């Protein structure tokens, strides 16, 4: 077996040194009733590298992927281009096969990357501090709601606009049954949650929400599912917590994961933050160094009193984000955002010109809702049969549709043609 280095002789020598006559003897604490003497008969035997590749390529070929289809689906996961350097860097052994940087003397690479990632997120969101990342945008929002409750010592949250349904479902699971309320009927509100752009693509202005949160003594939580929007829309610096999804920078859609939850907040709430934090310090020679810090918030120290049970981040995903964002820089990131917007504006203009189709949004960033002459789900399935991924069907005739820098004129024309001949 190619991944196992021990030879039969090694095994014999090691058993003999260990004073055991066979492997079963090493498992002496395991009762016979729990130990299987034979292989599991219903699972296959080992395969060559060639055979595994063939097995999985067959699965891969059964899917319609965005590299080969006109693609207009967004809704929280976006089809963006990733520069070649990103994947090269994240596949370096020193990053890919390292552990969590608990031994900082031999993990400064990972630690400095986290510190730079935290810096990027803080700058983009207009917040004081950011953590080393969380599982994804939906869990980041759930953690934000729980944190707001700890900070305010209140028990309810308001979801104030249209947020991604997966995020809402995740939030419902994490919070107590009656914790999500519709309006400010209660004086027990810990947070006002808004998504920007909202699920239907409409950018939010924050001032009114800030005032409302202040009036209620609640925190303002802003959730962002398309982080490229921050290259064009203002930083949500009026918020108390900004969280969301970083997949659009550096990460493939990958059927929904692994993605990248980000989390930033004001300094005042630092010690209530969930997740890992990397800080700057010095070593014994006084050299600038980085280390995981403020771990007294975390489960391995606090156990049942911890701020969260989280004991990981999305390290390699945060690296991919950091490399891609560093490549873009300020000029590239803002141009990429503008480009996304202009592609979407062109798509909206083209769709508006089709008889029977109307664009609902007055404002949008890179996705918006259209109404079709017939049921949207039916249209999506019809177009899928033609190799076009048309968007996300909403209720009735409504379709949520997205354009990115990868959406070419030719893709739009294929879509328009298909919709015109329904």
């Amino acid at each position, binding site marked *: 077996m190619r*991944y*196992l280095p021990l030879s039969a002789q090694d095994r014999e020598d090691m058993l003999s040194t*260990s004073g055991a006559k066979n492997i079963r003897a*090493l*498992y002496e*604490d395991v009762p016979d009733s*729990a*130990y299987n003497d034979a292989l599991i008969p219903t699972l*296959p035997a*080992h395969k060559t590298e060639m055979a595994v590749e063939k097995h*999985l390529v067959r699965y*891969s070929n*059964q*899917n*319609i*992927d*965005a*590299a080969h289809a006109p693609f207009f689906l967004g809704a929280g996961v976006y*089809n963006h281009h990733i*520069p070649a*350097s990103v994947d090269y*860097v994240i596949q370096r*052994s*020193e990053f*890919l*096969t390292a*552990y969590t940087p608990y031994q900082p003397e031999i993990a400064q690479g990972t630690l*400095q990357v986290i510190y730079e990632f935290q*810096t990027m997120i*803080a700058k*983009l969101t207009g917040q004081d501090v950011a953590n080393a990342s969380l599982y994804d945008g*939906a*869990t980041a929002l759930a953690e934000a709601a729980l944190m707001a409750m700890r900070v305010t010592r209140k028990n309810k949250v308001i979801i104030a606009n249209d947020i991604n349904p997966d995020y809402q479902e*995740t939030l419902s699971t994490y919070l107590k049954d009656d914790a999500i309320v519709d309006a400010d009927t209660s004086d027990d509100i810990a947070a006002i949650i808004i998504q920007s752009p909202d699920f239907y693509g409409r*950018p939010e202005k924050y001032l009114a929400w800030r005032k409302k949160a202040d009036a209620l003594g609640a925190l303002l939580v802003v959730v962002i599912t398309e982080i490229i929007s921050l290259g*064009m829309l203002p930083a949500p610096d009026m918020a108390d917590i900004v969280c969301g999804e970083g997949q659009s920078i550096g990460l493939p*859609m*990958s*059927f*929904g*994961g692994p993605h990248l939850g980000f989390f930033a907040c004001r300094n005042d709430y630092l010690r209530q933050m969930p997740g890992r934090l990397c800080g700057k*310090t010095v070593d014994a*020679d006084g*050299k600038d160094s980085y280390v995981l*810090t403020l771990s007294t918030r975390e489960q391995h120290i606090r156990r*049942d009193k*911890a701020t*969260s049970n989280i004991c*990981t981040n999305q390290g390699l*995903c945060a690296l991919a984000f950091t*490399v891609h964002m*560093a490549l*873009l*820089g300020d*000029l*590239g990131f803002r141009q990429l955002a503008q480009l996304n*917007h202009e592609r979407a*504006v062109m798509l909206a203009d083209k769709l508006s010109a089709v008889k029977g189709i109307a664009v609902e949004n*007055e*404002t949008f960033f890179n996705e918006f809702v259209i109404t079709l002459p017939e049921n949207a789900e039916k249209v999506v399935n019809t177009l899928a049969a033609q190799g076009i991924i048309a968007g996300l069907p909403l209720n009735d005739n409504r379709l949520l549709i997205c354009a990115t820098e990868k959406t070419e004129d030719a893709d739009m024309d294929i879509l328009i043609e298909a919709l015109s001949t329904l």
Partner: protein
Amino acid sequence: MAVDYKTDSNPTKFDVEADQNRALHYEEKFLWDHQQTDHSGVDLPAVDGSINKTGITARAATGLPNLSEPQILRHFVRLSTLNYSIDHGFFPLGSCTMKHNPRLNEKMARLPGFAHIHPLQPEQTVQGALGVMYELQDWLAQLTGLPGVALSPAAGAHGEYAGIMVIRAKLRDAGMHHKDTLLIPDSAHGTNPATAAMCGFKVKTISTKETGRLTLEAFKDALGDGENIAGMMVTNPNTCGLFERDIVEISKLLHAAGGYFYCDGANFNALVGRIKPADFGVDVMHINLHKTFSTPHGGGGPGSGPICCTEELAPYLPIPLVGKSDDGFYKLLRKDDCPKTLGRLRGFNGQFGMHVRALSYMLSHGNDGLRQVSGDAVLAANYILSQLKDDYHVPFEGRCMHEALFSEKWLKDHGVTTLDVAKALIEFGMHPMTVYFPLVVSGAMLVEPTETETKESIDRFIAVMKHIAELAKNGEGDIFHSYPISAPRKRLDEVLAARNPILNG
């Protein structure tokens, strides 16, 4: 004397003697401190620039630096050289299963049909992806003996949360709201009590300090009449590296009292292909794909923590699940298909890229290879235990499983601590073992060699450990306090970092 080479045409000041760059050793600056350029490191299609239908004035600046591609590559490659990794050498980090990460898995996850598909595409356009998830569910069900599988949890702790929420949903459905307490041994990972608290359970701790094991007696005491007991969270093999001898009996008592057995699957590498947790009474457990099934740790994630459970608990699993109809069509099961589900635990379908990697690993090993994995892992740990037991204090008797536990007891009299041993290992070119965990052993050192090390590599570790013990016992251990001295950094001032947090530049 340091010379500043500064001219009018070269305004940057260089103090060549003082800077730390030597041969292949570089001090790499903070990203923002590099010389900036006037354009992006990515060439994008031109934009009009005046179009704005967002309803808001476009942002003027983001605070990111402008650098070119060669600068970025050099920055991150230099940073990478400051890291230790599995591909460098021995990495015996107990409870973390730092095994070889096959690159075939990476190649498979990057196939366009896996990397570039969207979780909300129509099901008929992603049958291959759903097929991968279905096949992975089947492997996990067969390896654990637990037929209900949910792949969506994003990491081990997330899997724990899922598992305990499954138990909570079952108890609520059965009207057993009074069952509000979970039994957890004091050797458990910190995530266990943190998870129990997150799910609203009280925690009753069982002491294992005496023997390193959960004894029948201690368990019976903690269980009492079992009236309030929702279940137990037990890691098996436990965090002392021992298989719980009485686990079959204990799980029977727990079940008789109406409680459920949550197993922390962090140590599944000792069992895979040989022992099905269902056979020792587990009702629900998580599996760390990034431990047992070789998906890379990536410097701290992404992980993946699917959970497996009994038929009885399966209706409560978190959505989405993958089902298969009679005609072979794969389907994502959501709320309408699973009326008793505890709900959704994250966005979309889980860490799918990790699912592909784990399946690639399982297919490579097969039923025979996976059985050899656990055998070799347990053999390697026992070999280390037998070779070091006269040099380091072994707190508990008996054979170990896939990790061997030692303590600092015999070194302390010589002024040497577990931290010193860890830093000395770094100096001798190895990653340290897990230190100061489990908490039930003072100055614990938990050594998990895994099955992917050669005997030569293990023998060198043993030699280094004996050398460290010998220096300590000869009174020469003071030198360890300054270790490491050859690493990119010496010991860090962690107190300063926490007292005066600087979290971004």
